């Protein structure tokens, strides 16, 4: 019997290999053809439907609870407008807000609205509607399951008032330089007051959510797809895009396809136009085949480790600096990523207007790192691991489950640091477990962290614990007087140029203390695109926007 089984197994194996070989052949033939190069000079053509394959359509559609998700943000970006547009360099420009004024002390803001903007149900997007929106961004209705918008400067918010049809005044209790930029954030979407008044379970039905954007929801199926069609009377796109009137495309279909290779293969075989979030390894071959790859960076923090200054071994600045100098970022870029990714220059992304280049403060230098560890008294043992007073130089890394490449990066870092005498272990968790065990856990030595923002003022809220709600990334509390002063100056600044100077000082200080170990600039949204699709724009949050997009075929 056992021989019979073995024969069967071998036969099965051979048949299987034959099958796979055959499939590979067919698939190879299918994807061999390269799409024709687009004609750059062609005028935009009206019409056309595109299909956008996305890994997930996220959880709920309650606007406040979902609009800053990496997934739903795509749909909200087309169904709704914002008051202000932010481009990839962090410049703000008019959108639904035609202009704005700030008081000298940055506590009162006046927003002048464009005339004639309407929601897709015909109701006007007037001052009263804007007030209703600002109110819910700032406060939410948590007792009814509706969040506030996480990054809205809620702590200082006093009230918003409609002065007349097209003028809104907003009052804060303290200087809030970040208010205007926050209006361009992907959470700050304008919805009809009628939508905002709905209870949570009705807001969760996307077809009830009425915006003023260039597309409207034609149909949607939970966990499957969202079909958007163009709104013909749309004529108030962001001024920066210089686009008059409605969108060129007739429709955009967002379809959920969980498996990453199926998303890219669909684009390769011409069945879809955009595949979202391909893995970095797939990108170079796709580029060679003529597909458009976009890896826009968002404004925010780079990807890196926030070190916990209260637990060993990172309670010693020398050890923290040793980690900074012990990581070979070029190897991370060449191993895990492609040439589209860039090394970090500071702990904020280099496209943030206030970012300055501090890369020499944490340059890869294994000799210097070893010297620092010697100086700190960590002696290398027979097994290559350094010890001090009987303690091993050990810590655990927890890959960030919100980032697909995090585990690969952490594995490489663990290997690089072990060459220096660190004993690094990895513990990977899924999103819920990570949320429970790692986020907010004061004993975690190194948090791999990143975050998008539109205003550098946000930085202050993560550095110390001076204010309620501060995140205190490095667990320094209020113990570091220099850090307190610098973050206060950032938070209460009333002038952007003055603040930029402080921001430079702050970056230098945080990196000198090695509170933060930058790795690479973050690219969290990767687009593989049919080359026939032209005119796509990416805003400061790296979302693809199709108001000005068209198909050349």
């Amino acid at each position, binding site marked *: 019997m056992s021989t019979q*089984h073995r024969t*069967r*197994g071998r*036969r*099965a194996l051979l048949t*299987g290999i034959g*099958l*796979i070989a*055959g*499939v590979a052949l*067919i*698939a190879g*033939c299918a*994807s061999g053809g390269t799409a024709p190069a687009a004609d750059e000079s062609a005028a935009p053509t009206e019409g056309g439907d595109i*299909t956008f*394959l996305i890994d997930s359509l996220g*959880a*709920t*559609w309650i606007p406040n609870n979902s609009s800053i*998700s*990496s997934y739903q943000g795509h749909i909200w970006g087309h169904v709704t407008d914002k008051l202000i547009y932010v481009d990839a360099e962090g410049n703000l420009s008019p959108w639904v807000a035609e202009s704005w004024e700030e008081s000298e002390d940055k506590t009162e803001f006046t927003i002048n609205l464009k005339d004639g903007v309407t929601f897709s149900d015909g109701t006007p997007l007037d001052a009263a509607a804007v007030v209703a929106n600002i109110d819910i961004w700032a406060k939410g209705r*948590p*007792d009814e*399951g509706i*969040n506030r918008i*996480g*990054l809205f400067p809620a702590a200082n918010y006093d009230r918003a008032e409609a002065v007349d049809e097209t003028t809104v005044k907003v009052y804060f209790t303290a200087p809030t330089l970040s208010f205007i930029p926050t209006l361009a954030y992907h959470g700050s979407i304008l919805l009809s007051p009628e939508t905002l008044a709905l209870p949570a*379970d009705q807001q*969760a*039905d996307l077809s009830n959510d009425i915006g003023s954007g260039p597309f409207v929801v034609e149909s949607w*199926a*939970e*966990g*499957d*797809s969202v079909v958007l069609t163009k709104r013909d009377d749309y004529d108030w796109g962001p001024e920066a895009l210089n686009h008059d009137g409605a969108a060129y495309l007739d429709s955009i279909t967002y*379809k*959920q*396809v*969980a*498996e990453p290779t*199926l998303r890219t*293969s*669909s684009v*390769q*075989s011409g*069945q*879809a136009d955009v595949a979202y979030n391909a893995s970095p390894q797939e990108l170079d071959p796709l580029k060679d085949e003529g597909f458009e790859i976009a890896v826009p960076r968002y404004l925010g923090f780079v990807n890196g480790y926030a070190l916990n200054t209260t637990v060993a071994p990172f309670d010693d600045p020398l050890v923290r600096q040793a980690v900074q100098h012990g990581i070979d970022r070029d190897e991370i870029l060449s191993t895990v990523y492609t040439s589209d990714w860039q090394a970090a220059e500071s702990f904020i992304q280099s496209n943030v207007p206030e970012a300055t280049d501090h890369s020499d403060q944490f340059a890869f230098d294994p000799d210097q790192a070893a010297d620092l560890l010697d100086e700190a008294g960590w002696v290398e043992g027979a097994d290559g691991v350094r010890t001090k007073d009987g303690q091993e130089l050990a810590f655990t890394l927890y890959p960030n489950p*919100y980032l697909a490449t995090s585990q690969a990066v952490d594995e490489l870092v663990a290997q690089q640091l072990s060459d220096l005498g660190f004993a690094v272990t990895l513990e990977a968790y*899924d*999103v*819920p*477990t990570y*949320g*429970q065990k790692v*986020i*907010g856990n004061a004993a975690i030595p190194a948090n791999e*962290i990143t975050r*998008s923002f539109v205003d550098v003022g946000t930085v202050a809220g993560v550095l110390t614990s001076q204010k309620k*709600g501060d*995140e205190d990334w490095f667990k320094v509390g209020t113990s570091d007087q220099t850090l307190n002063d610098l973050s206060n100056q950032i938070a209460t600044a009333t002038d952007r140029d003055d603040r930029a100077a402080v921001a430079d000082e702050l970056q230098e200080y945080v990196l000198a203390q090695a509170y933060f170990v930058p790795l690479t600039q973050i690219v969290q949204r990767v687009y593989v695109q049919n080359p026939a699709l032209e005119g796509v724009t990416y805003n400061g949050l790296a979302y693809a926007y199709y108001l000005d997009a068209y198909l050349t075929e």
Partner: protein
Amino acid sequence: MLRTYGPYALRRIGQAVVVVLLAYLFTFFVISILPGDPITSTLRNPENGFTEEDIARIVSYYGLDQPLLVQLAGSLGRFVTGDFGISLRSNLPVSQLILDALGSTLQLAGAALLVAIVLAVTIAYGTQFLPPRFGQGVLRSLPSLFLSVPNFVIGLLLINVFAFGLGLFTMIDTETPWGTFFAALALGIPVSAQLAEVLIANLDHESRQEYIAVARSRGLGQSRLFLRHLVKPSSLPAVTVLALMVGELLGGALITESIFGRVGIGTLVEGAVASQDLPVLQAVVSLAALVFVVVNLLADLAYPLLDPRVTVGGRARAVSPAADQDIRSDLQEEVSIV
């Protein structure tokens, strides 16, 4: 027979209700032991930047800060009255989510069952009547091949060949007839393996019986022999396997649906498991338990009809072997025709 059937059926239905309730309770406790819930895991996404205080207020709205037993009582109370509650993840009514997903899954599972049965019977038929040199060996090795290749590999192969290679369907609309067919194929192939194995083993056993030799020697036609004398006695274990296949179809649907990008009960479960969406999971698990129990009940009730030797209600009935009777009458027919 009816007199023994009544209490028997009632007892089985009672058992079914208990099983469904236990499945409901079990899901509740298993999920409650796990850390987190969809609300906090969404709110804790560092991208969102919420404070613990913000999170606590939202969590309190959903009653997730209540003691376990209070949550259970509420959920059980709603369940008994047929209200499955609101999905924590999507905030939509669970009953609506299930209704939206059910049609697609039933279509897929039904088609897959059909694929599995056709495949298994074809293979089994082939193993009996194809000459050993012309493919019988290959046929006999197919079930173990089908079992050893994972569902998702078959799915990916089919998609690569028939969607991307030949363009018979697209990933954008996999609910078209071709899309459904290939999804059913991906799901049905592994499921057919067990059925085929059981059929083959039984056919092998039956064909070694004397009455078959007699029938053959009298020149009984091949199809007739297969359908009338081999399939029927071989089908009893096949019915058991068929009932078990329902479980496999439910489990396999999860993978097949997510690979083919179909929205169904499988993808609903997948999303709910990933985010620990308790109301959805409880409803689906209870539904699955119900389906499974009902199908097995039907199988149990079908046994006595297929083979009178099967005892009902614990009382044995002495019956002369059915096959022998059949073969006798059949042979008489054949003889009279000759």
